[in-house]
């Protein structure tokens, strides 16, 4: 039963705040994805939980234990590094056994646990290999086995899949999730790949400039981003801003969107539809077609609305119906697809 919690965590590097008063709970047994642009503090937060970064202020709790003053080697963590950091002079089995040896686990017990861990990551027969003889995906699995074999209280993953090519990454995402479920360990991972975060996590936290912007289950955050940064960072978003009137949101082209109660809204590119003729709804915009991007099954339209770029994605077979010489279109959307934003930017 290990819940991890950080309270009012703050860390500055000179004038730059890498972490600014972050309070966050990582639920027991959950898979928590930390994401944000580079420099947002997500890696600093992970390394603070690991113990490689000493916070200026705040508390870190692993289970009921306050660990701010506990060195890395006593925190009972497992960590997978971006570069995997396998010991090159040791075999796969020796790598996995390292944490057990350090803990003075007797040899027979150690052997059994190493075999069990390698079995879990489906590398049962590669124990005798050196890391240099493994593929990227296999190294990743060894790193996982090594991190969990000591039965740590929390598993920390630092961009664990970023070194893999796309096909392998998708495969390893499924594997990571399977392994994490089987072990049931509280897992925190850092990624800059929002799709990866959505796929893997039970909960996500979005950081920006050292602050926690948003936290919650991926679908809930995606469906209700609440602010423009989250809307744009998690998926893509067209943000429209206007002035609030009693009847709704008045846009600069005097379109009135009834029922909207915030000055800004976001519309997902995939939530937009188009038509050649004015649709019979107030939720519509007249736009100029700027660019059509073909990328296989789905296509993208870049549209201009009063100097602002808007984006629409749709199945390519729908986009094909737009005449080649079309210059303007009508955009429309369902009232339910409007994502109200508390604050603009």
């Amino acid at each position, binding site marked *: 039963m290990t819940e991890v919690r950080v309270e009012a965590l703050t860390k500055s590097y000179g004038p730059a705040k890498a972490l600014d008063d972050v309070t966050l709970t990582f639920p027991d047994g959950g898979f928590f994805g930390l994401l944000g642009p580079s420099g947002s503090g997500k890696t600093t937060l992970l390394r603070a939980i*690991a*113990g*490689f970064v000493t916070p200026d202020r705040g508390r870190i709790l692993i289970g009921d234990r306050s660990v701010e003053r506990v*060195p*890395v*080697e*006593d925190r*009972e*963590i*497992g*960590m997978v*590094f*971006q*570069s995997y*950091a*396998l*010991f*090159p*002079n040791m075999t796969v089995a020796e790598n996995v056994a*390292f*944490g057990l040896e*350090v*803990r003075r686990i007797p040899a027979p017990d150690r052997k059994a646990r190493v075999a069990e861990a390698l079995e879990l990551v489906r590398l049962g027969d590669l124990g005798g290999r050196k890391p240099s003889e493994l593929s990227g995906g296999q190294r990743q699995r060894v790193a996982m086995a*090594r*991190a969990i074999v*000591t039965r740590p209280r929390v598993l*920390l993953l630092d961009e664990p899949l970023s070194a893999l090519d796309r096909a392998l990454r998708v495969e390893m995402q499924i594997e990571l999730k399977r392994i994490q479920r089987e072990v049931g360990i509280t897992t925190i991972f850092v990624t800059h790949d929002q799709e990866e975060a959505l796929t893997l996590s039970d909960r996500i936290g979005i950081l920006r400039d050292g602050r926690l912007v948003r936290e919650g289950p991926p679908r809930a955050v995606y469906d209700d981003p609440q602010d423009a940064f989250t809307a744009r960072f998690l998926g893509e978003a067209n943000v429209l801003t206007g002035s609030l009137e009693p009847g709704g949101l008045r846009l600069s082209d005097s379109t009135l969107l009834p029922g909207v109660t915030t000055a800004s809204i976001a519309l997902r590119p995939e939530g937009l539809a188009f038509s050649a003729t004015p649709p019979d709804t107030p939720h519509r915009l007249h736009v100029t077609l700027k660019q059509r991007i073909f990328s296989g099954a789905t296509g993208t339209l870049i549209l201009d609305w009063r100097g602002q770029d808007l984006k629409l994605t749709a199945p390519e077979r729908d986009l094909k119906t737009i005449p080649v010489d079309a210059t303007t279109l009508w955009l429309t959307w369902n009232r339910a697809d409007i994502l109200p934003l508390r604050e603009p930017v």
Partner: protein
Amino acid sequence: MIRQTLARAYLALILIFLYAPIIVMAVMSLNASQFYALPFEFSTRWYERLFTNREILSAAWRSVWIALVVATIATTLGTMAALALWRHDFPGKRILQTLLFPPIAIPWLITGTAMLIFFFGIGIGRGTPAVILGHVALALPYVIVTVTARTASFDRALDEAARSLGARPFTIARRVTLPHAAPGIVAGALFAFAVSFDQFVVSYFLAQPGDTTLPVLIYTAIRKGFTPEINAVSTIIIVVSMALMILAARYARFGGTK
């Protein structure tokens, strides 16, 4: 074709330039004549005389054990220094790193003089301890440079991974850091041995008369009168030194292959 031939000739000239005097010396150490008379007549008499010459043997032995002691001390200190420089950041680190290199470039004559004055000033004076201290000071930068060359390629995440697995600094050093740095350490030790074993100038300044190392003895012997025994002992020194350097180069992996 012509360019290739010219390049080969050029390479041959360089090798001749480097090795011709040495080869002549090695050949003459096997010539029976004391006065380099030709035709060449094979003989091992100079080597036989060498191995009955007590003075040369004791100087050679002294050179070897001093070099071993120097290599041990310099390698230990140098490795610790290199690892500390790699692991920690501290004020003045850059200055310290920069200051480690000039001793390699300062002429030994000047280093030797400075050491002699300094050692007399602090009461060590001349003698074998002074020679060892001097040699360690000369060899240390070589060790630090070769070990640092290895640690530069060390992934910091390895250190962090070991810590995350619960390992203490000593275990990390023994199981992770040192195995990685080992080739650099071995190369550094070989360099240190060679620097000490081949050292003339500093030894000449710091050794007690009658308590000399082999290079100093050779120099003294040449002044008294040249004998082919010197050729013989020099040939042995050359073979040993070259073997050490080839080994060191292999361990340090000069030439870039990994």
